[in-house]
């Protein structure tokens, strides 16, 4: 456990000055900021539409969730998996890392956990900032009715689903980035996978859930459908989430065997 903690601290120390780390913070700040600014400058039109409070929140949070879930999320995960491994490829430091008196599993698991943590921080900030900026808009423009509905449940559920459904992609991309030092191979495979994922998820193919890249889209689509019925009643642990978690666990273990066999030439 101590080795895992030490490795995790070191991962943070190494990356705290890199784009990979700051992306986790800047991305939600920028996206949520832009959407809130859009709402602020378009406030008149929005007020004129007389949305019920729940629908107003759905529009507002859906803007961030939509952009994030369909477009940015898979690429963000690909980028995180890449950058956590690339820091060692680029500096040729794998051999140093594995020559430390720490067990190899801790080193590997810490890297993986750190990527998970960055994705978690990013999505957590998305949820928090959506909530906070919504209330800020309410303060700035009192005519909006953000304050008449509590969106916390729906936000937490949606972002939790997005987080869990992206772990499958993370594990897969993590292995690809572990094997290849360059950006193009994992990015190319991830790109094709994501496009295929979006297409198969949207045409409603029966086995779309077997492609890990389609899982965030699938997970969010169900959220959207449920919104029309009862928004608070949608379950988190649906088929997509289980599939994602199973992928994540299996590929995480496979990755470990790759690491132990990895010859450090």
């Amino acid at each position, binding site marked *: 456990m101590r080795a895992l903690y*030490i490795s995790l601290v070191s991962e943070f120390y190494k990356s705290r*000055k890199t784009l990979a780390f700051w992306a986790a913070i800047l991305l939600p700040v920028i996206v949520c900021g832009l959407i809130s600014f859009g709402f602020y400058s378009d406030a008149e039109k929005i007020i004129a539409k007389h949305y019920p409070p729940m629908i107003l929140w759905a529009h507002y949070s859906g803007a961030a969730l939509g952009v994030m879930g369909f477009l940015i999320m898979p690429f963000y995960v690909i980028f995180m998996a890449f950058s956590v491994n690339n*820091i060692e490829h680029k*500096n*040729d*430091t794998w051999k140093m*890392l*594995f020559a430390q008196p720490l*067990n190899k599993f801790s080193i590997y698991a810490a890297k993986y956990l750190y990527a998970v943590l960055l994705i978690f921080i990013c999505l957590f900030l998305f949820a928090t900032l959506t909530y906070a900026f919504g209330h800020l808009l309410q303060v700035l423009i009192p005519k909006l009715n953000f304050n008449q509905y509590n969106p916390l449940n729906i936000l937490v559920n949606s972002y939790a689903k997005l987080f869990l459904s992206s772990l499958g992609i993370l594990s897969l991309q993590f292995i690809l980035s572990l094997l290849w030092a360059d950006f193009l191979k994992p990015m190319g495979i991830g790109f094709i996978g994501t496009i295929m994922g979006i297409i198969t998820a949207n045409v409603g193919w029966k086995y779309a859930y077997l492609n890990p890249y389609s899982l965030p889209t699938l997970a969010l689509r169900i959220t959207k459908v449920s919104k029309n019925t009862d928004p608070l009643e949608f379950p988190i642990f649906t088929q997509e989430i289980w599939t994602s978690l199973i992928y994540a666990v299996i590929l995480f273990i496979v990755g470990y065997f790759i690491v132990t066999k990895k010859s450090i030439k």
Partner: protein
Amino acid sequence: MGNYAIETVGLNFNFGNQVIVKNLSLQVPKGSIYGFLGPNGAGKTTTIKILLNLLKSPSDQVFIFGKEINSNRIASLKRIGALVEQPAIYGHLTGKENLINRCILLGIKKTKADEMLSLVGLAEAANKKAGKYSLGMKQRLGIAQALISDPELLLLDEPTNGLDPNGIIEVRNLMIDLATKHQKTILVSSHLLAEIERTATHVGIINKGQLLFQGTINELHLLSKPMLEIEVDKIDSASSLLTRSGYEIMAKTDRIITIPFTSSQKSGELNTLLIQNGFTVSSLYQQRKDLENLFLDITKTN
């Protein structure tokens, strides 16, 4: 067994079908500076990676302080500091941050970082990005990283690579200091014998994965036959005189005749002989075949 910091017993290692290390039996005594010599591609770096368990050795072939490495990986690595090939440095971190990161991984006090920086003469560049360091500075930072945990055994793979003459001398003195004052054992690899000759107490010569020589530096010297070099005028008639008198001429240039050295007395007699026959001998000295040539000889016959 107990006296060796490193011992390999008939170590074999292949990459696929390619044999890299063949029946290698290294014996590195505690407290020695062991020069691990060989031309490029001889298997030195591979051996060092095996000693760090980066490459997995067959069981019961590699022992670090008497303990089998595969079953004592973490305990062994705790006692080793290493610099393998290029120093492993994060370019986006400063020199100091690189060392602090190492402190985190080793669970030691961060104040060690400053101590090491001044030891290797990088205190002034502590807050400069390591990616912007010169080759020599990177090499020194790599040495600082290897030393930071105060390990009993140091594995240095060509540590003077890229250093200027001053840097080379500093590293050399540092190694001697560490071995004599701090009782460290150092295995230092190089393809330059002259480099090793000045510091090493023991030498191992490897070529094509096989150990060709292992012993103390003096034992290596004994292998080289001393020669007598005579600087003399009228070189052609001088050499025919020597041949007629029963001397075996090993080499002849336009100024110098080389014959095997037997004893000081014989050298004196030879000098008298030349002078009595009207030659001017401007110098006459015993020359050991230098280790560089010896090294070439040893690796060539393999």
